[in-house]
């Protein structure tokens, strides 16, 4: 699976969870850029990603995520394991 496909999936998840159908998501997008993206919606996004890719993130890994690019990197790491 390439990064562009994952980005597309994450964008869909974020648009749904954050209730922002027109949200544009790039690799650099972070919680600081989107007001709706806070600790509560973050856990929903993470959980949706975990369900979609059938992966489980460690707690310490979640804290290191700074933006969408980091998320994609982590998903890739989990998928190749």
């Amino acid at each position, binding site marked *: 699976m390439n990064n562009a496909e994952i980005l597309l999936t994450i964008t869909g998840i974020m648009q749904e969870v954050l209730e922002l159908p027109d949200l544009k998501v790039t690799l650099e997008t972070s919680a600081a850029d989107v007001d*709706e993206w*806070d*600790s*509560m919606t973050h*856990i*929903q996004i993470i*959980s949706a990603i975990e369900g979609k890719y059938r992966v489980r993130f*460690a*707690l*310490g*890994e*979640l*804290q*290191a995520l700074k933006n969408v690019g980091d998320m994609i990197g982590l998903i890739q790491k989990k998928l190749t394991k």
Partner: protein
Amino acid sequence: MLFNSYGFIFLFLPVALLGYFGLNHFKQITLGKMWLIAASLYFYSYWNIKNLPLLLTSILVNYVIGQYLQKDISWKKNLFRFGLVFNVGLLFFFKYAGLIGFAKIALPLGISFFTLQQIGFLVDAYEGLTTEKSFLDYTVFVSFFPQLISGPIGHFQHLMPQIENPENKRFNIDQFSLGLFVFCLGLTKKVLISEAFASWAKPGFEAGATLDFLAAWKTSLSYTFQLYYDFSGYTDMAIGIGHMFNVKLPHNFNSPFRSKSVIEFWSRWHMTLSQFINTYVFTPLVRAMPKITFRNTMIATFLAMFIAGVWHGAGWTFVVYGAIHGAALVMNHIRKKKKKKFPGWLAWLLTFNFINVSFVIFRAHEMGDALRVLKGMLGFNGVVIPRIGIKSVGALKDFGFKVGSYLYPDDYFLIVMFIGVFWAIHKLHNTSELEKTFKPQTKVAMACGIAFVLCLFGMNRITEFIYFNF
């Protein structure tokens, strides 16, 4: 030993740096680490050497547990549970033993912080994120003196690679000057700003004081700024010392008083604690629930905030502090979900005042003292107007207004300081912004030098940091 003491600045810190970089220069990497540990343990023992065995026991037990958690063993889950119980139990014993009838024991310095840092390590070890084998490295990680007493709460995976990096073992003049700059910033916050506000905040919280409207607001606002400049000053000094050792410690504050909601406030205030609570308390709580619904995440939000409140200590004030912040977060999330928004200025005003009121409760020794200050802020004890230009309040007398004494020079200083900080929190760059644009120029050096000398004069009466009590 305090960062804001002559002994630390002129003796301990230079010797610690010299020894560390000296040993590393002669390729004595292991000795360099041992030096760092020795310096940190001396720094810790300076207050009370009786606490040292506790720190060492905590490090040793957690290291051993961590070693087994990194292995593939059948009893891993039980060992992990034991590790959590050991750490939380230790914290509980020293912080809350007084509550359940034991004689109150003096709180060992820094226990709340080094315990959290090690709980984080155990979870990471359990989940396979660490492969640390060296006892020496683990001890460096926990005991590293800039962050040992009051954080910032760090991660093994963040701190240790920086210490291991061969590049960072050489004295770096750029990092050192950045460190000096950030340290001076923190020292100024503590000695020149926080101490001034402390002198205005203290009398109002003492038992028996009756506060009129203006005196109560003076008390509460002074404490709010005292706390912020004390804790962010401490953190800046810690980060500055970190730079001198070529280690980047995480930031703890990002202009918290600019926040326009309580949710935003907690992403800007004591950030390493919020992140810790978010990662290791809130997330597991949500995951433990059968389904992620709005209601369930709100329950977890409230509980996590409540735990963050009582982590500060035993006492009803911290229970109430945690509970009102938890409730405020939940209300904030509900409004956000309904897409309701206040105008910007009103959002700021409400948030700031909520924080200010919550800090009154945080500061007070007992709820009674807090209520006394809050009553005064609501005008229950009348309003005393300073005698400037007016001699009588006329009909307002019936509403509790009175004319008091003239303003003293100290009062004018207070007014100037209030205007100054409200301007500063909105307009000035914060430490992490200043770090990014820092250049070692003559004018910066001059400003630092002047501030440093002023601080030296202010340091003849040394006061501890507020967060050393937690």
